[in-house]
């Protein structure tokens, strides 16, 4: 086939993808960036105000509170998820009874909409008749119930626990795929040499799993930075705004009709995620070079 028609056909096959992506991703992102330089509030005429929205952002203590919360949330939950995900992947990688069933079970938290499971968590954390407080009291761990959703510490850990529940399976699945690429011969040889399984983990599994671990880590970080659904349903950002994530903060401005300021916040989140994404691509290539 002549080269020219191949080029033409290549583009024709990609037209649907390019149109959908251009209209529903590229235009909105560019639009958001432009809007962030405008005063764009309901009932007032639009007006170009340059960097005013960004100046306001930098002196907005509520924004920085939400920023701090988001960073702290990302750090703690992602590290916990990687830790638990590694253990779960090691368990699922072995020949244990009920392995097929376990693989279905582990997909459940990931596959159920978090907005729905958050309602079940809400009930589990309930102060008066929640399951967690019932267990705490019955086991005698404390004489009084813990205020899970009504205190800022409690709300923070409630969100972390539910998020760990939701996303550990995803990490487990990725790590499981990583584990399956490690040749079984390595373990056999190490076994013959008399090393125990803890040593085998630290000297064989962990180093070989490192590239996949880094990918999972960055992937999850980018995802966790934009957390919205779980918090919206579980705490609504409270108590006292202590669990408001940056996405939720921007959303509240959109909802109140202040699109200019909401867009400025969104652009900042966008830049943060992009920086991480670039890091991710770089590491992606690095892992290629390791091979």
């Amino acid at each position, binding site marked *: 086939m002549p080269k020219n028609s191949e080029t033409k056909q*290549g583009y024709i096959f990609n037209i649907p993808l390019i149109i959908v992506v251009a209209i*529903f991703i590229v235009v909105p992102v560019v639009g958001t960036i432009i809007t962030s330089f405008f005063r764009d509030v309901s009932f007032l005429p639009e007006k170009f105000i340059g960097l005013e929205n960004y100046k306001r952002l930098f002196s907005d203590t509520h924004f920085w509170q939400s920023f701090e919360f988001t960073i702290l949330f990302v750090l703690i939950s992602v590290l916990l998820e990687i830790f638990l995900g590694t253990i779960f992947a090691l*368990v699922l990688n072995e020949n*244990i009874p009920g392995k097929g069933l376990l693989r*279905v079970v582990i997909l459940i938290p990931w*596959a159920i909409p978090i907005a729905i499971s958050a309602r*079940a968590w809400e009930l*589990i954390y309930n102060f008066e008749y929640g399951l967690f407080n019932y267990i705490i009291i019955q086991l005698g761990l404390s004489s009084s119930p813990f205020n899970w959703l009504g205190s800022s510490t409690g709300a923070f850990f409630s969100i972390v626990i539910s998020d760990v529940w939701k996303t550990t399976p995803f990490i487990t699945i990725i790590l499981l795929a990583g584990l399956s690429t490690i040749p079984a011969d390595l373990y056999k040889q190490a076994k013959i040499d008399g090393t125990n399984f803890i040593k085998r983990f630290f000297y064989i599994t962990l180093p070989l799993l490192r590239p996949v671990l880094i990918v999972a880590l960055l992937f999850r970080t980018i995802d966790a930075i934009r957390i919205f659904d779980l918090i919206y349903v579980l705490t609504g950002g409270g108590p006292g705004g202590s669990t408001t994530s940056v996405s939720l903060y921007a959303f509240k401005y959109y909802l109140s009709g202040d699109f200019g300021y909401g867009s400025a916040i969104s652009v900042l989140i966008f830049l943060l995620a992009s920086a991480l994404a670039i890091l991710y691509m770089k590491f992606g290539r690095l892992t290629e070079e390791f091979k």
Partner: protein
Amino acid sequence: MNEERLKQIFLITGGIVLTAFCLLPFLWMIIISLGKNPDFLSGQTSFGFTFNNYTAIFTSSSVHLLDYLKNSLIVSTIAAILATIIASLSAYAITRLKFPGRILIPLLLLGFSMFPQISLLGYLFKMLSELGWINTYASLIFPYVTLALPLALWIMLSHFSRLSKELDNAALIDGAGRLKILSKIILPISLPGLFSAFILSFIFSFNEFLFALMFTIDYKARTIPVGIALFEGLYGQIPWGYIMAAAVIAVLPIIMVIALFQKYIMQGLTEGAIKG
């Protein structure tokens, strides 16, 4: 203690903890949905086994939970079909035809998939309002297609690149067009890949929350995650029994899908994530 035993203990404990951890909120949903008193743990009331919560949400017309579920199923199915078709077309061209930019498309799409949804939300809302699409299926279907496309494309790419190009060449010599080759030869032998892409796109769409929250107003287009999240009841007291019964009904289709197609989901996820 000898090593094998230590390992056995580690594995069995891990398996039990894992199962309990994953199932807890789901089991709690089922338990509360089957009781008369969701506050029975306080000791003031008894559990009171009943199916009333289920009959109530199926018979009460003001609750609209079945409408939400119907909307979710329609929107997610259409979005998943569109995403799978669009991804197949692109993946075929990228793996079979030489044209400038063929490497760039999947990479750009991967980059776009990392854009936070919030950075699209405000402007997309304005665009959809102008179009008069707010509170319609279309306001969700198209954004969902873009959410699902990156993973769908990577899955199809990895399937198509494994197929020999001889298949195409033989058909080309016989005078078949590219579109015909794709639909008559390539797609029929790529059913597992198509299936993975479809199921994952469906789950992504079914789970989406932020767009559905912002772009829908009532039962005409509102999806089940938003419906359940915003369900508060009329008289102040949160009707937990109803909510949990609705939640069980909403997640049952998803759980059935993963129980039946666990292999495809795992495969699709790892293909998308490891290579991506």
